[in-house]
């Protein structure tokens, strides 16, 4: 059967929002989430979110470096000259982009805090030691997650470390959780960070080719409970999923005359605060027809 084709999109309605969590307000801590949206020279768009680890003293800087690292890597690997048109080619690019994100992040840390280099060896992009975090490595204070998506419809490449998540909305088809937060994260009690030694082993990396996608939601874990639901699979296990009603977010911001501020107002609402005291960040992007 022929794949349905979406008319060429005129661009994106991009609505980013980031609000400080009620817990951080109470504790006098700043918002440790960061996001970045960036139009790449070849027409692709980068959407990146990062969640600085609450337990790390300089994590908001780590989160900023993470999204900047994603921008540097995307500019390098998604230039018009480097555009691939096959699935294997796209996968190669995504892989290079992921490694580029890690190298740029390490480089930014080294550059911003030169003293660090002398104190401890940094983890390599593919390190697989048996400890998650080096206790004596000062870089751990910059601990952060990252999820970066390069959108070049109908191609979407993603790279994530940690518990951020990606939902795509398809027409027809509705909302789908494409990059879920790691399973069992709440019961494990630990999150893999860009500063973790086993970051590569636990990274989410992939390419999606889907002409039916009309929008993306790139989110930090602070909005996870408010947006996602739990579904029981046939084998009895439970997994997170994007509920049907999540498509309303894309409907709302696809409509002409929408107020971008609505997203931040909603993330700051009591309904969201009841689900989590954490910072809440979301980039919602809808393709304009």
């Amino acid at each position, binding site marked *: 059967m022929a794949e349905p084709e979406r008319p060429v999109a005129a661009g994106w309605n991009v609505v980013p929002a980031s609000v400080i969590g009620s817990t951080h307000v109470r504790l006098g801590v700043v918002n440790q989430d960061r996001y970045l949206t960036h139009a790449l020279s070849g027409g692709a768009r980068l959407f990146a979110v990062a969640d600085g680890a*609450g337990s790390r003293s300089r994590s908001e800087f780590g989160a900023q470096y993470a999204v900047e690292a994603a921008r540097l890597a995307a500019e390098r690997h998604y230039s018009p000259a480097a555009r691939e048109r096959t699935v294997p080619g796209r996968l190669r690019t995504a892989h290079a982009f992921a490694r580029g994100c890690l190298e740029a992040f390490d480089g930014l840390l080294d550059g911003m805090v030169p003293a660090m280099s002398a104190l401890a060896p940094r983890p390599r992009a593919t390190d697989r030691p048996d400890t998650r975090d080096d206790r004596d490595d000062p870089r751990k204070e910059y601990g952060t997650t990252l999820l970066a998506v390069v959108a070049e419809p109908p191609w979407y490449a993603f790279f994530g470390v940690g518990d951020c998540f990606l939902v795509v909305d398809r027409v027809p088809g509705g909302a789908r959780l494409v990059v879920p937060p790691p399973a*069992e994260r709440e019961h494990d*009690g630990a999150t893999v960070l860009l500063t973790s030694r086993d970051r590569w082993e636990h990274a989410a990396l992939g390419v999606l080719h889907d002409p039916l996608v009309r929008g993306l939601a790139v989110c930090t874990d602070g909005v996870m*409970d408010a947006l996602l639901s739990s579904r029981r699979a046939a084998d009895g296990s439970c997994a997170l999923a994007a509920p049907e*009603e999540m498509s309303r977010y894309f409907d709302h911001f696809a409509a002409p005359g929408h*107020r971008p501020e*609505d997203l931040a107002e909603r993330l700051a*609402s009591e309904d969201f605060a009841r*689900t989590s005291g954490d910072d809440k960040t979301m980039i919602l992007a809808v393709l304009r027809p």
Partner: protein
Amino acid sequence: MTDSTVLRDALPAQAPRGRLLITLVVDTSESMRESGRIDELNAALRGWREELLKVDPVASIGEIAMVTFGFNHVQVIDPSGRVSGPPAQPYVPVREFSPPELRADGVTPLVAGVQEALRLVAVRRRELREAGMPMKNRPLVYLITDGVPTDDKGHKSNDWQDLAPVIRQQESGKHILFFAFGVTGADEAVLRALAPESYSSLTDVTMARVLSLMSASIESAGNASRDQPAEKVYKDAREHQKQADRIREWMRRNG
């Protein structure tokens, strides 16, 4: 500004799914009766729910269980007060917390009480995992005692020495956070061994005050980052308690 009802419908939020487990391990031995502490505790517990409900997001995601040691040896109490015997589900939402009148008598099987609490936590964790319910943070276990651990005959027992490493192991595995509150009569050496970074020795302090300190601790520890080491959470909880004390003192002086 978009009308909030319209916005709520346009951008819907799911009901809170995460859970925060709070387990109280309460001394109901004879000394609690003799000192009149049990009556004081009962009175304080009656008003504690309202205080807990002010702690966000504990009000919406908190579940509480209660274990007593002393009267009838070790008992799991229904924290909602609806069931008189052992409840089928020991954990109830915080908003339903309305414990029955506690009675005090007998020896002090503190270790068995804590062990029972750890068992309840493990069972509930498994239930939540199977139901696809996330844990918002590590389960919080609170011990309140005025005495010395004893064996079944009331003789001082050293079995707490075997319990301490079990608690340390659970802490380092990020399975629980353990706090101990000792009121007048409690053995400080035992508390220090069980909760070296998180024990409070509270002499001449009312039980209402103990519960108030516990609320402050729950607020701080319940909102801590999941990947924080236990020692850091305990340190922050102590700071939070001090801060709450300063605010309370200021309020008292300034009406």
